[in-house]
């Protein structure tokens, strides 16, 4: 067994900057030298490996790696991430009370542990290494770094304190190192307004309303659990521009939030009235039909008034935010949302949009969470469509700037996958198909397209990257080091009866990784 463990560690020995931890692991067997020497010769023995670098270690990155490794036996894949931890939104997006959804981590770990793949955390494209350098070092660079920013409403008061994006809130409760300082004030108010009715909105609502005794058994960040235990929030409003037929959530998430213990659900009966256009929409969409049925059932099942002390969840349909209201007594803080009523207008068969009616109303609250969509961030040297918030691409091939000619011009060897390619929608499984397309395009270019000639050129790949990182004093975190973080988090979790206690600062993570 120790043999396998040692071998696994050594398979990543290329990526270890400080060989210390490795030696410690296998020194007892007295084989350090022979293993290391052997593995180095392994890399030189393989004829011209195809060096691939994937930027981002979320589902899009890992599915791309898995499919690439499977399709190209000669491929060496390095997955880099700016965080010391892998798995992207599976770690920092999926709600703590959805452990089953995170099972996919096991599959991704097997990919990372394979001999032809390596993970290098704590490597930021931009500061650690530039995109241009990566493209020099590798035959193929796949960008799969997702969407780490937010769409904005662009309405007055959006900068008031107490107005957060749901992404920040999710990062906060999931222990993302960049989210731990959010410190949302959950004690100043009994009402939270969530703008949006997608799955992220429902996750946030559920975390705010679910009994904390239940959350305490999850891998929720401890700072978030403490804040939620002290939270005075009793009422949550989920505000959507359109109606119950157009809600963007999925049935599982809705069923879950509706099933929270001792929660009063409020849905205006008038909002459930269907127009012929709604019925047409439902006929064509199984999911919308089922969502509508769940909502109507919930509307009729709950008594009209909450019992005393009961927490409340209000679905507010046909309203769009017009501006945020500032508190009179607390300057700079939000005290409510000015909402405009909307009506639906058909623009195409089965497609209706919300338009303002000129009627307004106020909704008082002490905290607002905007769940209106994520947005990708551009990168230096990368063509970017700022309006759509994605990288312009044709079947995953990155299109060059100033692309007017026919045939279109591509950035050679540069591909995209996941949210950066198609926008921030879909579920984990969507990335399966997304990665399949990316890998199909790479394969096609290798066989007959732009990569056919460059693939035969020798490129430095991982060795070159590691050299650059060493020169710049960047401490990369290989997968074996992540496994130490993992082990430490599980150990800390077991002390508190949690599956894991996440380390939430870069310093703590690096320390656990490189002991």
């Amino acid at each position, binding site marked *: 067994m120790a043999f396998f*463990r040692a071998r696994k560690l050594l398979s990543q020995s290329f990526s270890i900057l400080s060989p210390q931890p490795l030696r410690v692991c296998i020194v007892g067997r007295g084989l350090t030298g022979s293993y290391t020497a052997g593995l180095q010769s392994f890399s030189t023995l393989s004829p011209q490996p195809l060096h691939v670098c994937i930027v981002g270690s979320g589902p899009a990155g890992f599915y791309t790696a898995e499919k690439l490794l499977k399709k190209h036996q000669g491929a060496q894949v390095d997955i880099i991430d700016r965080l010391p931890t892998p798995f992207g939104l599976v770690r920092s997006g999926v709600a703590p009370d959805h452990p089953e959804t995170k*099972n*996919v981590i096991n599959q991704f770990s*097997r990919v990372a*542990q394979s001999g032809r793949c390596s993970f290098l955390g704590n490597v930021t494209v931009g500061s650690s290494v530039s995109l241009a350098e990566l493209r020099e070092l590798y035959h193929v660079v796949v960008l799969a770094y997702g969407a780490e920013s937010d769409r904005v409403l662009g309405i007055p008061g959006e900068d008031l304190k107490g107005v957060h994006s749901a992404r920040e809130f999710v990062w906060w409760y999931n222990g993302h190192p960049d989210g731990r300082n959010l410190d949302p004030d959950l004690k100043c108010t009994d009402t939270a307004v969530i703008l949006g009715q997608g799955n992220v909105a429902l996750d946030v609502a559920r975390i705010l309303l679910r009994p904390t005794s239940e959350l305490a058994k999850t891998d929720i960040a401890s700072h978030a659990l403490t804040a939620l235990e002290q939270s005075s929030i009793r009422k949550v409003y989920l505000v959507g521009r359109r109606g119950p037929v157009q809600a963007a959530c999925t049935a599982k998430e809705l069923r879950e939030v509706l099933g929270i213990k001792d929660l009063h659900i409020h849905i205006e009966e008038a909002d459930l009235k269907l127009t012929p256009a709604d019925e047409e929409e439902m006929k*064509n969409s*199984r999911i919308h039909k089922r969502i509508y049925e769940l909502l109507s059932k919930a509307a009729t099942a709950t008594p009209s008034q909450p019992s005393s002390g009961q927490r409340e969840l209000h679905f507010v349909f046909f309203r769009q935010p017009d501006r945020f209201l500032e508190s009179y007594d607390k300057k700079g803080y939000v005290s409510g949302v000015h909402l405009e009523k909307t009506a639906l207008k058909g623009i195409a068969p089965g497609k209706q949009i919300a338009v303002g009616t000129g009627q307004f109303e106020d909704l008082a609250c002490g905290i607002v969470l905007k769940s209106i969509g994520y947005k990708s961030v551009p990168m230096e040297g990368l063509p970017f469509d700022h309006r759509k918030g994605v990288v312009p691409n044709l079947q995953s091939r990155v299109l060059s700037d100033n692309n007017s000619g026919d045939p279109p011009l591509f950035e050679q060897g540069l591909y995209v996958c996941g949210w950066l390619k198609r926008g921030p929608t*879909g*579920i984990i499984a969507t990335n399966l198909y*997304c990665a399949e397309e990316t890998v199909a395009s790479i394969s096609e270019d290798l066989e007959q397209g732009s990569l056919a000639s460059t693939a035969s050129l020798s490129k430095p790949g991982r060795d070159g990257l590691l050299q650059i990182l060493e020169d710049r004093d960047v401490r990369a975190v290989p997968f074996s080091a992540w496994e130490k973080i993992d082990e430490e988090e599980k150990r800390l979790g077991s002390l508190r009866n949690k599956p894991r206690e996440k380390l939430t600062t870069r310093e703590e993570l690096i320390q656990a990784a490189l002991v």
Partner: protein
Amino acid sequence: MTFLVSSFYQTQPPNYLASLESSIALRFAETVLLHQIMLSFRLSRVGFWIARVLSRGGYTNISRARFRPSLCRQYQPSLPEILPETRVFQGALFQKHHDFSTSASNNASEGGNEQEETISVTFVSKDGEETQIRVPVGMSMLEAAHENDLELEGACEGSLACSTCHVVVMDMEYYNKLEDPTDEENDMLDLAFGLTETSRLGCQIVARPELDGIRLAIPAATRNFAVDGYVAKPH
């Protein structure tokens, strides 16, 4: 030379490694393999041979064990850690016991002894390629597919939290023999790509005698997969 050892590992069938279950066998093999690295190429072939013999021994032994469905559903997170390379591209989520159960089922179909009953299941791949396998009664189609190295995704490992093991039951007659999907399964089917009227999740179809002969298609990914524009067919 290490290259040889590595490729040796990577080319072995899953059963080989899975069958090195007992710690004694493992230790022995470990020693053998360590020698492989340090000694000559010739010796490494001897090691290979020893390991094979060893694995066969273990295998026969274990194949007498009856198939236990309860074991099948226990995920053993420690195993992928032990054998990462061989596992990764086989999508073998369901660990060692499955290999044993396959052998048990083979025995049953061939020998006709008192072994566990199996049924015939045909998987039709995305490319239309058909593979007929024997599946022990009580085993889910997701587990069976993985045990036979068929390409069926299983992101959530059968915990009803994803739609990646979506299969299409090819004959309505068989579809009707299945119990109705639960709300939870339907919630996931909502999100399956290329949903049809006889779509089910592979993890929720469990082998029963009356399903003998069932044919399941693994749907091809649609080129235009954007969830936004994707409209599932009414169910």
